[in-house]
């Protein structure tokens, strides 16, 4: 009996085919089928943001997307944020600002923040706090995370 579906999509700029059960979330497929474990499961009901990925240009909680819905889509995960040239400004800024302690929420924050900076490269503190309110961090109190995103905006502006 064939219980799995073939899904074809592009993940981190790479054409990817995978098999999944209809009940498997995109998060499960990324982690358990494709070994892309950078996206984390903190709640599995869309309330912590640790599994945030960019799906066709929009940030989504990958635990709320079915694997089969990825068919034909473009997905960026935390593993696709750095390039051969080095870290993304957000990643560098998170390190320099010490914007992580345990680090489990960090992939979700960086992907979500990239979703913001791609749209609004000059978002102010309030806008950043509003945008990132779907991502929970229990270690940092958010101060250094917000500062890291502000720093990444400056780094990006200087690059251009």
């Amino acid at each position: 009996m064939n219980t799995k579906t073939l899904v074809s999509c592009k993940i981190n700029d790479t054409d990817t085919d995978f098999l999944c059960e209809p009940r498997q979330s995109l998060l499960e497929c990324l982690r358990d089928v494709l070994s892309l474990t950078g996206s984390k499961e903190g709640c599995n009901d869309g309330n912590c943001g640790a599994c945030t990925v960019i799906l066709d240009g929009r940030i989504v909680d990958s635990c709320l997307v079915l694997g089969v819905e990825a068919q034909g889509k473009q997905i960026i995960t935390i593993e696709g944020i750095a390039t051969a040239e080095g870290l993304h400004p957000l990643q560098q800024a998170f390190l320099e600002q010490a914007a992580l302690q345990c680090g489990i929420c960090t992939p979700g924050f960086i992907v979500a923040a990239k979703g913001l900076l791609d749209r609004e490269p000059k978002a102010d503190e309030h806008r950043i706090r509003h945008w990132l309110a779907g991502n929970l961090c229990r270690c940092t109190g958010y101060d250094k995370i917000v500062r890291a995103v502000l720093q990444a905006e400056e780094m990006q502006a200087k690059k251009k």
Partner: protein
Amino acid sequence: MTTTERPIAQNAAPYRVLGTRPLRHDGVDKVTGRAKYGVDASVPGMLYGAVLRSPHAHARILHIDTAAAEALPGVKGVVTAKDMGIYQRPLDYAQTMRNPRFIAEQMLASKKVVYKGQGVAAVAAASLHIAQEAAALIRVDYEPLPAVLSLDDAMQPNAPKVHDDLTTRVIAADHTRKQDSGTSSNVAGRLEMKRGDLAEGFRRAAFVAEAEFRTSRVHQGYIEPHNATAYWAPDGKITIWNSSQGAFTIREQVAEVLQVPESQVRIIPLEIGGGFGGKTTTYLDAVAALLSKKTGHPVKMLMTRREVFEATGPTPATLMRCKIGADKDGKLTAGYLFLAFDAGAFPGGAVGAGATTSFAPYKLDTVLVEGYDVVLNKPKVHSYRAPGSPQAAFAVESILDMLAAKLGLDPLELRRRNAAHEGDRLPNGVPLNSVGIDEVIAAMQKHPHYSAPLGGPNRGRGVSLGYWGNAGKHSSATLSLGADGKVSLVTGSVDIGGSRAALAMHAAEVLGLAAEDIVPAVGDTESVGMTDITGGSRTAMATGAAVYEAAQMIKREMIRRAALLWEVKPEDVSFDHGLFVNTRQPTDRLTFQQVAARAMSTGGPLTASASAFPKKIAPAICGNIVDVEVDPETGKVAVLRFTVVEDVGTAAHPSYVEGQMQGGTVQGIGWALSEEYCWNDSGAMLNPTFLDYRMPTSLDVPMIDTVMVHVPNPYHPFGVRGVGEVSIVPPLAALANAVSHAIGARMTSLPMSPAVVLQALAGKRA
């Protein structure tokens, strides 16, 4: 092997590496998603496990039928309490920390369930979905029993008993428990800390303030759920990949629960996604091991968020009464505190720590603290950042605020006049160790925040202090010199928030290297000496002391090697900033790297191990200034400005010290304003999701301004002091004081959710 215990006080000088802000060594892995956390464990051939949990708060287990679950395709094995060897051992209620019988009961209940969410049976299957389906197919016949669900009910003499054989024990000053009443009770422990004549103290008071306080259960809220992946090999060797706050501590617990020698268990700690005390015990490891033994496969288990809320240990709910008197000059004359802490289904609710820390920042010669450790039919509580202290401080610091108002005295001035000093007695009689209480109060008084105008209506400002004793315990470290002059560092301390960096900096400081020249790693239980938990704010301090000793050994040996090369005596070699100089021929110079490169020809590999067990511990003190605005229509509290002042001693890595201050503060904000376990009347948690259990988001809080006060720890070679926990202590009272001033009514119950604040406003109008 050496043990660090001597006080080394001459450390006021600035350091070369400590106090700087290098990038953390594990940083790139963590910002690129490549770091492997416990939840990411993957072992070839592994199955997935799931636990069937009790739907009842209190019920006798009559029969468990696993046939339907075992018949489901993909299911490989089921375990129940029958598979737990430890149940042949008697239950000793006197042991409240790491009691293996309590741990086993939480995993797979033996005879009855005592809270909703308690484990009853577990399944291993080819996928997590199948395991969860199979768990739901297990049939359990229960005989429901009357449940006791509130502190007030549980303490009634005629209340239903959680455990028929549990009696009230006296909790001694060292927290050990002695037999007491001999009669069955839900009050598992009772303590009394007493000094002076209380009645006389209150007679001398010109002003007295008193009130009753309540706090709700809150959860540590780490983002990574509990997890364990275990393999029980045919030769009996058990390997566990997990994330915990202490591999050795978990190994001890697993070995006891499974009744095997510790050497048979190897714990491989992967990265940990938060703990805050909640991952110092085990809920899954032994179950995964039993399932592995039964199936012959490795088994991975992972809690859902609901399980984390319902089946792990949050912090106690409390009922407290506090009364403090002061003379007309604002000197405290007497303090009384009644603490009833909800321990959950098994004894051990941090009431001792709450009692000890309660009045700690203040000199008080007349004091009585009564504490009660109360069991009821809810999940057993566990440690949460400075366990017990935030609640007790909420009561004491609220009363001080009321007292200051009666005296017409500035609330910080009242605290300054009564600040305790080294040698003054804590409520338990132990003398206070060196800590900068005066310095923290002074920094608060002169901070611009304290004199800034509030700037609008419905606003209030609150202050509070918080104290925490910090821990010492055991740590081990091993350094090995590489041919390129880099030094590998292995410690047993799990890195929960940047400790690799702080510990590497200790070695770099001694060896005259840069932080980047040290390559830090976290060892497993077979690769490094016994090391206690990453907890108690101890890691940078105590493991740092072990690293310091090991680095001194490396330094001495390298001096000896350099002397060999020059054919002089070691005392003829000086070492400064990574440079060796032959003092008999000062043009003879060798860099650290040059001596390292010659290691094989001067005697072979250089490696050094040391352990530390700091016997004298410097405590922590933290103060808050906070401004809030209350919306009179909705009762919602907005936090406008927050300043945290903490005595951090020598800040090893200031960025991560600030991070501890900010993180603990925001946890405290959640505790004060929005977080609580909500219950129905049959003992089920109504809000086991992050949607309904409201932890602060980035939008709920402002920037958290940090002021680091540096009073070096006299018992650490560099003055490093425990800094992690204390920041969660003052926010509860500081926010309650701020809200009370904003609305003109005293807040005595947490959280101060909109409904509670509206009620207080309505009460004021009526």
